[in-house]
């Protein structure tokens, strides 16, 4: 138990050091452009899984929270030239508030209804942004971010490192939740909310906590985007594809443990990054669709579940 924690911490530090080392060792910036997209999905998938995987509440609108993070950060940058750290914290707070609102929705609606309500959230936020002139409306907003610190080599390398740190923290947080009594309570309410409540689990409080943490992390994932792309528009911030991938990744990796979304994100996002530049994007989407169907039909517990099943079979 303790040894596992030490191993995880060591792994996290190694990942961060490797990231930092890569920024100085790898001259080719493309690595960080593509890496940013992949790491962003690690954060998104991990964040989504805290609510969707552990608690079983399917947020079909992760793009709403991500978009809220993107626009919060851009707004602060435009209005006050706020530094990235401030934007990340602010995006997290906005995400947390939206998450709590979503959490209160769980009081009233479960299952499919919750999923549909979250879709509504995406459209509502996108409509709101369309109608706010200061945020560029449908036109989008082009902003040139301030120069990155010198140690980060370049702008892309800088946001890559920031996002990598966010990813490591998100995964650590997800892992802690999963292994603590909170995770156990969430899994219990996923199985049966009524039984969990009758076993003394404060289900509403746990759901609110899960919604808040998940919402905050989803929004945080969007905060550095304006520094990455220098341009945001409602279409990319509230992107359907982004939402789809965020849901697909934990399902492909496995929703029961922190490693599932990480594996799913690394796998699917890398394949997609490679696919963008090799095969047509129709086939790309077709691939995601088929993967979803195949995994639901054949490996409902994702790659991790599949691996466990194989291991059991070999031992038996």
């Amino acid at each position, binding site marked *: 138990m303790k040894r596992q924690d030490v191993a995880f911490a060591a792994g996290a530090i190694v990942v961060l050091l490797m990231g930092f080392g890569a920024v100085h060792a790898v001259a080719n910036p*493309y690595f960080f452009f593509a890496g940013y997209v992949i790491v962003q999905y690690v954060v998104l998938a991990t964040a989504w899984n805290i609510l969707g995987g552990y608690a079983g509440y399917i947020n079909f609108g992760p793009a709403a929270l991500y978009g809220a993070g993107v626009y919060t950060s851009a707004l602060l940058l435009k209005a006050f030239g706020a530094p990235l750290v401030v934007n990340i914290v602010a995006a997290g707070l906005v995400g947390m508030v939206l998450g709590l609102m979503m959490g209160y929705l769980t009081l009233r609606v479960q299952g499919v209804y919750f999923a549909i309500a979250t879709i509504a959230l995406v459209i509502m936020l996108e409509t709101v942004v369309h109608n706010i002139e200061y945020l560029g409306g449908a036109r989008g907003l082009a902003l*040139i971010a301030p120069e990155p610190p010198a140690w980060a080599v370049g702008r892309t390398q800088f946001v890559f490192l920031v996002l990598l740190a966010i990813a490591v923290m998100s995964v650590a947080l997800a892992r802690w939740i999963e292994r603590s009594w909170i995770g156990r309570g969430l899994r219990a309410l996923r199985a049966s909310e009524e039984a969990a409540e009758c076993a003394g689990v404060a289900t509403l409080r746990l759901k609110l906590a899960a919604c808040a943490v998940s919402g905050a992390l989803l929004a945080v994932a969007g905060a550095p985007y304006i520094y990455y792309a220098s341009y945001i528009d409602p279409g990319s911030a509230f992107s359907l594809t982004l939402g789809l991938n965020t849901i697909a990744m934990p399902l492909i990796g496995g929703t029961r443990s922190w490693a599932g979304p990480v594996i799913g994100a690394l796998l699917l996002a890398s394949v997609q990054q490679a696919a963008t530049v090799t095969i047509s*994007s129709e086939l790309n989407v077709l691939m995601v669709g088929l993967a979803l169907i195949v995994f639901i039909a054949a490996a409902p517990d994702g790659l991790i579940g599949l691996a466990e099943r194989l291991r059991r079979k070999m031992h038996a």
Partner: protein
Amino acid sequence: MISRRRFSKIAAGTGLALAAPALSTSSLAQAQPIKIGTSISLTGPLSGTKNALTGYQLWRDDVNAAGGLLGRPVELVTYDDQSSPAQIPAIYSKLVDVDRVDLLISPYGAVLSAPVMPFVKQRDLFLVGMFALAGNDTVRHDKYFHACPWGPNSQVNWARGFFDLARAAGCTKVAIMSADIEFAKISAAGGKAISEEYRMSVVYDQSYPPNQTDFSAILRNIRAAQPEAVFVCSYPPDSTALIRGLSEVGIGDSVKIFGGSMIGLQYASLLANIGPALNGIVNLHLYVPEPTMRNPAIDGFLARYEPLARAQQLDALGHYVPPFCYAAGQIIEAGVKGANTLNHAQISRYLHANPVQTIVGRATFNELGDWTEKRVLMVQFRGIRGRDVEQFRQPGRQVILDPPPLRTGELVAPFGAARSG
């Protein structure tokens, strides 16, 4: 994506005297190719512009047939950006850092170009702009050259032609409607600015969501405001729905001129689909087959484009995007040949100093890389009958009203009369 081999086969199959790269002189084949990189929206909402690729390919084949650039063959490196700006940073980094392309062309339009601009500014790279209105106005990069004749200060000015026509027709009250889409919003803002400048009162100004299918409420509100000019900034799906609504509920007798910035009325499939309901509308275009526009070069280009379009199910007319992609190639060609190097600074210096003759006209660049002379057409649809695409290849159907040097007819007004006529 159409592979090069298949493209060559199609090209060869059409029996045109196209020299595919493989047929070029042996010395050219041995030389290290010059790579030109860009992204194309093969999929997603902007995939109507995917015929850009054909424009680039035709230029590449021509330049290679003529011995290449600096004695080296030209090679295109293209990726599908899925019409999504989120894809752009990684794609352009891949083009520059991994594929090591020599020269860059921007993706289509302002939304997709926006993430590229800070990138090229930071790396100090040469870039040919494609269709982005005021694409360089914020970043002000000195190595940017626009292949599109939007003209200087295009954010405001590009649609001035429509308002010049409106003023000449005596309009004082204008209605502006726009889709919640980047290009439409910029157009609408420009339209408002010019209205003020011309002391026209804006009696209606509202935007609507993309994919709006029913325009009756909007059209009634406009009719109630009794404008004389209606400046419409729409996108393909809503352009169709709007024109249908026009036939259904009408717009009132006060209107003298209607249209302006309706995207989609340049595409063959939409034109054929709407048919006679187009008559009377005044709208932007960049090329129409009117006598003042035609020259052997563009005629030849379109003649080669047509069979390819048929084989690949691309836009049948190819008037809107492909010629300007070919022109983008010509701008690169002129710059590289003129400066006799691939050095971005020297190419830029040359292009700033010398005009370029393209198949879409002579381009002289200002300090922001925009054409010094705006050459956006305002055309009026006339005598459209039935749904045959061929009629849009004939002169007299899309009459040029503005700019004056290219004019082939006068505005028919009021709008009601122009529609029935």
